[in-house]
């Protein structure tokens, strides 16, 4: 008689909001939510890239736990009961988005990503119709030295999707982050103009995964920068298979 193969990864059942679901135990909460179209806001997580856990928008409540958990970096477990929407979570997400809007210059009306921006879209979803937090009004530089692309630090939310896609998918590691706190800035090579970069392959993946108008194509005008991220899960899967 054939022996059943011992599974290395178990399947667990859990409850997210009102849905009873099953999931592999090596999946994170956000992956299960995405699979079942349960909306959880996030600006740093992207299917195909490593976990970052920086935007803190995907925080959820676990039954029996007083502290919150980031859905992108928390694995599911048997019997877990997860609450993705509550007054408290909505309030926190609202405030975090406000903090982002106040931190740098996010004026949608003049942005090439207007209408195609994940920050803008999330703000609308979360009902951020005004910002109570004082704007900082700090001017950051714009790097237009690359012949095809442009980096506008004023629109950057430091989600590091560009850093991760360049390192993990393209394998160039052109991008990194320098400084700390609010002085953080995404840099190409060792803080050289992007156009002078020796490592950049001009593949444009960073531009496509950027959630805002920070990384865009040259020559786009207001609202013209539409991004396409469909390549990412496919490339990521190929990379992990090979």
């Amino acid at each position, binding site marked *: 008689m054939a022996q059943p193969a011992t599974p290395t990864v178990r399947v667990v059942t859990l409850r997210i909001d009102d849905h009873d679901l099953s999931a592999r135990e090596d999946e994170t909460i956000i992956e299960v939510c995405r699979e079942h179209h349960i909306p959880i806001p996030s600006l740093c997580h992207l299917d195909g890239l490593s*976990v*970052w*856990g*920086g*935007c*803190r928008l995907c*925080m959820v409540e676990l039954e029996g736990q007083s*502290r*919150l958990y*980031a859905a*992108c*970096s*928390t*694995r599911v477990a048997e019997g877990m009961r997860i609450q993705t929407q509550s007054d408290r979570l909505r*309030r*926190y997400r609202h*405030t*975090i988005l406000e*903090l*982002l809007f*106040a*931190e740098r210059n996010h004026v949608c009306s003049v942005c090439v990503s207007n209408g195609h921006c994940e920050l803008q879209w999330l703000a609308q979803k979360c009902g951020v119709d005004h910002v*109570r*937090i*004082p704007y*900082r009004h700090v001017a950051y530089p714009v790097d237009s030295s690359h012949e095809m692309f442009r980096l506008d630090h004023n629109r950057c*939310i*430091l989600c590091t999707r560009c850093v991760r896609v360049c390192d993990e998918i393209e394998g160039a590691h052109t991008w*990194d*982050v320098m*400084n*700390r*706190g*609010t*002085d*953080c800035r995404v840099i190409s090579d060792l803080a050289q103009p992007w156009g002078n970069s020796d490592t950049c392959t001009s593949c444009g993946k960073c531009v496509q995964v950027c959630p805002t108008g920070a990384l865009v194509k040259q020559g786009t005008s207001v609202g013209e920068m539409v991004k396409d991220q469909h390549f990412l899960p496919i490339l990521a899967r190929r990379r992990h298979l090979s």
Partner: protein
Amino acid sequence: MHPEDLAEKAAQFRAEDAAIKREVRVCMAASCQSSGAAPVLEALTQLCGDGGGTCRVKGVGCMGLCSAGPLVAVADKDCDLADSVLYRDVMPTDAPDIMRSVCGAPVERLRCPTDQPFFARQQRIVLENCGIIDPDSFKSYVAVGGYAALVKALSEMTPAEVLREVTTSGLRGRGGGGYPTGLKWSTVAKTPGAQKYVICNADEGDPGAFMDRAVLESDPHRVLEGMAIAGYAIGANKAYVYVRAEYPLAVERLQTALRKARGAGFLGNRVADTQFSFEVEIRLGAGAFVCGEETALMASIEGLRGQPRPRPPYPAESGLWGCPTLINNVESFANIAPIIRNGGDWFAGIGTEKSKGTKVFALAGKIQNTGLIEVPMGTSLRDIIEVIGGGIPDGKTFKAVQTGGPSGGCIPEQHLDIGVDYDSLKTLGTIMGSGGMIVMDDTSCMVDVARYFMEFCMTESCGKCIPCRAGTQQMHGLLDKIANGQGTAADLALLEELCEVVQATSLCGLGQTAPNPVLSTLRYFRDEYEAKLADG
């Protein structure tokens, strides 16, 4: 090596200077050096010469009463601090008088009484050798019983027995979190993995805290011994000490200790002639406070950008280079040798029900006796500040004591009678932290205090997560506005809301605890905030 062989060695080291009867000990820790201890040591050494073979001058580690430095103790050999004649504020010109007093009457004009509560009320376990032995001398550490615990563990105990002693002792992490050390050790021990690591966190960064620096500068071998015992217990053969580069003297003494311990066969291959091998390396921090957070610290050791990552997985499961890793603070490791030597039950007999042993505190701010003290857990804050610390100078009155650095909070007068332990401080809205205590008198403005700590967190935030990066910045702006008398009730409300969001959503401990100084000052001194409001 058999314990008897080590005991023989220790006896031999003691016999080498059996002729020495009297010692002149000069504190050569960082704070006494900064007030001029080096020339004092030089002058005394010159005058002493060979001391007729019966007297010697030596540099030792921290004696605790930093405010009175440079400190010089004249004592019989093998005599501890409380029984010595202690001199304060010593100048090189005082050397002849001190040398004359070695065999004669004490110099009354320099005398610092050692029967005062500052010395009498302490119980020294971690600091037992501080200010007595020469930190650069391997022999003097062995002579006072050093490495006996390691040899005992290696030759007479199984790793499981070591774990049991540490668990029985009830020791909790001295870095501030208070996680049970025994539990942490056995978790790493039970996690499968061919390669495991031990890390000593010596990235002490809280403003006003200098416990770990003093231990490393005064008794570095004790930390190495604790680490080696940990390595044996959990099955690790490689360790790192992560020290901040701002502690050059501690680094230097640690390097010397490493070299000598390796030379004597207590580190490296076949520790003390057993099958156990244990290598220790030093890694220097480059000045980021966040690197005291364990995941950021490990990233830094790996050569990556020092920023935290989400936990779980905890280091016990996936730490340095993905391997199971034990990470403890300097003071935790410094407690291990006495626990193994005297047994876990002995240690569990000291302290309170849930916080065992002693705690080293660094007293700073508006207090008579600034310096380093070690008291049993459960000692009341009033005892620490008014009796041991000598109260508030210049006839001012006490206002608050800040514990736990930028992650902690302020405790006002009405709660001074509480016994200090991990849990009692938590109920007051602050934390034990690593042991810094900053005392404030009635001239301190609590909004200023909160603003100071928020500025610290803002500049030390790594920038990875939004609540901490942008939230601390906004909170600092609001505190600044309120402190300058331009804040409104709406600003105060927004500040409180930001506190809640940053506390609940930040990625690591730095952000999660950054609002604590604001929340605790709001809890006890709300009237000061309201008095400063423009529309109040």
